[in-house]
């Protein structure tokens, strides 16, 4: 298990390899479709994403008294942000993206070029992940984007994930597809009529 603390630095990020199991502590920012489109249009968030972590997540957040409390916060499918992600990594200096399902070629290349990793969270593990979120520190764009789409600044502790795209050009998704494709071809030849 590798412990990570956000904000991250480039050296630490570049030391990670595909397949590493990590636990992340520190600050993460949620962002999904609306935010990615908005950032892609050249807008800049009030908080700095430099060396920061973006989490593809539309959390369920309730107000309890004066405090925000996260009740469910699993990852959402990342591939929808593929058209935007590479540009955002480059322009804002993002060091890690958390999500599920993996991302494509453009993001893989951006990770390699600018020193960023993709961390795959456990899809559906809403309760475990909600427990890892210790505090809602701030929110931006609540009115503009609506609650699930807003940028939530969250303090997490030991948030579990696996590195599936590293900063060396590797992608577990690509490898897995290639390996399972070869195995599938082998199984096909053994199917008897």
């Amino acid at each position, binding site marked *: 298990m590798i412990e990570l603390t956000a904000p991250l630095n480039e050296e630490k990020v570049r030391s990670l390899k595909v397949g590493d199991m990590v636990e992340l502590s520190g600050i993460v920012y949620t962002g999904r479709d609306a935010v990615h489109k908005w950032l892609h249009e050249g807008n800049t968030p009030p908080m700095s994403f430099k060396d920061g972590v973006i989490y593809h997540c539309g959390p369920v957040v309730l107000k309890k008294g004066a405090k925000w409390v996260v009740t469910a916060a699993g990852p959402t499918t990342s591939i929808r942000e593929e058209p935007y992600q590479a540009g955002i990594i480059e322009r804002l200096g993002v060091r890690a993206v958390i999500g*599920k399902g*993996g991302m494509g070629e453009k993001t893989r290349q951006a990770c390699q070029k600018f020193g960023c990793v993709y961390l*795959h969270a456990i*899809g*559906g593990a809403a*309760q475990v992940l909600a427990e890892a979120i210790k505090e809602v520190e701030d929110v931006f764009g609540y009115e503009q984007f609506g609650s699930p789409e807003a940028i939530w600044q969250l303090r997490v502790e030991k948030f579990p994930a696996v590195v599936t795209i590293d900063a060396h050009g590797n992608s577990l*998704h690509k490898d897995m597809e290639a390996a399972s494709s070869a195995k599938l071809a082998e199984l096909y030849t053994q199917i*008897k009529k």
Partner: protein
Amino acid sequence: MNSTQQKKLLEAFIEIIRKTSTELPKDVIESVRKGHGAEDKGSRGDYALGIIQKNIDLAKLKSQPLCQDTGSILFYIHYPKKLEHDAVAKVIRKAVVAATKKGYLRQNSVDSITGKNSGTNVGPGSPTLHLEPWSKDVFEVRLMLKGGGCENVGVQYSLPDGRIGAGRDLAGVKKCILDAVYQAQGKGCGPGILGVTIGGDRATGYLTSKEQFLRKLGDRNPDPVLAKLEDECLVEANQLGIGPMGFGGKTTLLGVKVGVLNRLPASFFVSVSYMCWAFRRQGATVTSKGEIKKWLY
């Protein structure tokens, strides 16, 4: 239906929704546990399944949704025929609205044109009700919550399929099933369960593929040909090595369930539905007075 009966029934349906959203059925829990045991200690598959098991326990303990995507709401119900169909449907819709307010269901139903969320989970097609009257004086209620991530990786083949070289025979069917698992990779939040229909038309094929999920994971298909197909597909799909979440490993699938329908001579469909590990399915017999008598899973 008188008003006390309505009130009791409403409570029973809310309880069935709560239990479905927060507790996996025993057969699924057992299967996840077994899959976890099969992964090498310290591997990524072991890691993922460990977190999944923790999540299953935590959701039950906190009585909160297992996954934040509480999915399509699919009811399969037999009801006493002396009751009116519309009255029964009305109580169920009310229960869905109430369960959404209580947070057992996420606000999860949007207008397909405007994108507007109904906020209640009630709208055209939601919840989906399969309501059948019968002569018994009890309800038999089954409920499944099926998430979007896994629904998106479902696929339908029309045989012959030139891309994968699948002809109109059992060998072709098997190629479809294995291809569906390969295409899904980790995107359907595996380890998954497949519901498959051989035959039917496009609509009945998918419908029947989902009904396969009402079967318990450990059951045996009464048709020996299908039973064999299920066993073989499970073993071979797990050899693909995709593993939990697509991280690699031995447990790619927890089960394969196959049903068969007649087809037109001109068509040969193979319909595959994928269910994620968050396999939310519960059921109960409920008296006509609205008392839950027995849980089915």
